[in-house]
């Protein structure tokens, strides 16, 4: 059963990922991304990270990708780039080579350090808490870790979110009344 789930989810993930990078139309890429995110959520559930799976779907697929789509709409869908050639010489083969190298190294690491992770359970010695264990469910366990050991980080991230919102407002503001940096007006002034 687990195998079946894994295989299907993996297929979805990989197809989606390939779709992201191959699609000519950015909207298609966004939709492929959604597929990948969904597959990852499934695998999260498989790994007993229920809360995270939910958050993944809600935040990632539900908000972030939607944001992407908003921006695509805002800027025009008919922006297609030429996928045949690459203006930068040697970029494509080198990119594939580098990425393949990284993959190879990763796999090599796995093979070289071959271990059966499943019977290494250090959860009992973990500073933060265990995933498995009787009683509490995933949400509670995660919450306990978050609000005791990582409280400071949690608060900081909330500040980070505020900053991000402010930044987004400032960046995307349409400079209508007083342009901070108006190219056309400045060049006209220089020409005079």
């Amino acid at each position: 059963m687990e195998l079946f789930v894994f295989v299907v989810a993996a297929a979805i993930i990989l197809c989606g990922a390939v779709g992201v990078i191959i699609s000519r139309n950015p909207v298609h890429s966004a939709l492929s991304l959604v597929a990948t995110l969904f597959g990852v959520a499934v695998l999260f559930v498989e790994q007993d990270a229920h809360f995270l799976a939910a958050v993944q779907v809600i935040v990632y697929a539900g908000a972030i990708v939607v944001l992407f789509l908003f921006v695509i709409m805002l800027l025009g869908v008919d922006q297609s780039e030429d996928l045949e050639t690459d203006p930068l010489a040697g970029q494509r083969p080198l990119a594939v080579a580098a990425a393949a190298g990284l993959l190879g190294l990763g796999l090599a690491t796995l093979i070289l350090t071959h271990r059966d992770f499943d019977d290494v359970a250090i959860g009992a010695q973990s500073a933060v808490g265990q995933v498995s264990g009787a009683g509490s469910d995933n949400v509670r366990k995660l919450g306990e870790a978050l609000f005791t050991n990582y409280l400071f980080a949690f608060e900081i991230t909330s500040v980070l979110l505020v900053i991000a919102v402010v930044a987004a407002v400032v960046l995307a503001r349409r400079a209508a009344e007083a342009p901070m940096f108006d190219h056309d007006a400045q060049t006209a002034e220089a020409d005079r």
Partner: protein
Amino acid sequence: MLLAAVQPTTTWYLVLGALLFTIGAVGLMVRRNPLVMFMCVELMLNAVNLTFVTFAKALDDIGGQTIVFFVLVVAAAEVVVGLGIIVALMRRRPGATADDISVLKG
């Protein structure tokens, strides 16, 4: 069935994560549309998340999931700011690709 006896081990998940990461890296280096490049970054982040969650389960440590939580939050903030920049950029030059922003050429 015979196949039912085979269980996906931790290694399978890790391999999957590596593959996903690689695909994202290739996409980042090859595509020119800024939005698509951003989506490839999201792919890479997801691969990392997957790896962390796998290790959390394997090492029985909730810390792995906590990390993923924070990655999610920061990724969200990053997307917000990044898209804001892209919007500001694309307003100036409609149809710009990543290759057009090369003023810092040495």
